[in-house]
């Protein structure tokens, strides 16, 4: 194990793009969930 500056740079990049990417995906799923609720409201029997 030897410290490598390039690895650290990639790790920071993964933090930004990876964690940011998860928020983006979850935000889109959030909006889709809201839309699903609006477009397909539960019927009376549900």
């Amino acid at each position, binding site marked *: *194990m*030897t*410290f*490598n500056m390039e*690895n*650290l740079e*990639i*790790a*920071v*990049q*993964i*933090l930004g*793009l*990876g*964690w940011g*990417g*998860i*928020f*983006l*995906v*979850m*935000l*889109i*799923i*959030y909006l*889709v*969930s*809201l839309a*699903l*609720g609006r477009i*397909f*409201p*539960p*019927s009376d029997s*549900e």
Partner: protein
Amino acid sequence: MEILIEGVVSLVAEPGRIAMMLIGALLMYLGIKKQYEPTLLVPMGLGTILVNIPGSGVLMTGGEPGPFQILFDAGIETELFPLLLFIGIGAMIDFGPLLSNPFLLLFGAAAQFGIFFVIIVASLLGFDINDAASAGIIAAADGPTSIFVANSLGSKYMGAIMVAAYSYMALVPIIQPFAVKLVTTKKERQIRMNYNPRSVSKTAKILFPVIICVIAGLIAPDSLPLVGFLMFGNLLRECGVLDNLSQSAQNELVNLISILLGLCVSVKMEYHDFLQLDTLIIMGLGLLGFVMDSVGGVLFAKVLNIFRKEKINPMVGAAGISAFPMSSRVIQKLATEEDPQNFILMQAAGANVAGQIASVVAGGLVLGLLL
């Protein structure tokens, strides 16, 4: 008799083997006596003993791969076992609490912080970036995702990663209260939340897994094996016409794969691979990741509270990890400890289910960024 003595002599000549057998016994003890993830720890424990017997036939027999090695090559190298397990997990998940309160999805994202924190710490410690990412993914708190990602990245710490992922998941009731109390005040833990869920239609529940596949596939195509199998399982559950398949996925499939997975994981538990300082560091990093997941989720909730009139109990943020339903139960227990009338289980369960989606997306994104 001579053969027995020969065996004992070669065992004593390599004390590492004895140490690993003791570790195997410890895993079985934790599984049987403490009931920590017994479906995996018991087969993994016995497997660890079997692979560390000198000249063990489970690994190589007559110059040919033994049964454990064959299982490993067929199920882990190909990544089939963790994916098949996901069908069963998907069939077990009810996205209802999440769909009725979709805002909770964001906590699933926030509580993946530990993954990225550990990747940075591991890089600082000098680990190769693929091994650092594999260590980080332990913090996804999701065994199959950890196996899938570590294997895809070709990590040499597979054994440690799998043991850490499953044992820490079992230790969530100990790890999370510590982490949550570290970053919350008693007053914050006493915050009560109203629960006004929207009703969710059957059509929405059926469309949800399909739409998630499409979204995840477009943004992070590498996450599709994980997300696709998980959502396929959920579709079996929700579609209403495949109840038999859903039941089989939840029971027979999960049980069968767990048996095989537990056994063949032990291929990576040979003493010369496992008993290394690096391995211990990887396991320590995994623990750190679990703590930082909870910290990330709690701090995210606290930041949201700055802008919200109706405050969120920040502990709900910590439930955004994938360990379902254990994490939500732990959070409810913590809330009850501070205020016996405080009921936040449903919000915690929603965040917890969000954590399951977020962890597979995280795995896919990490793979996408590194492969």
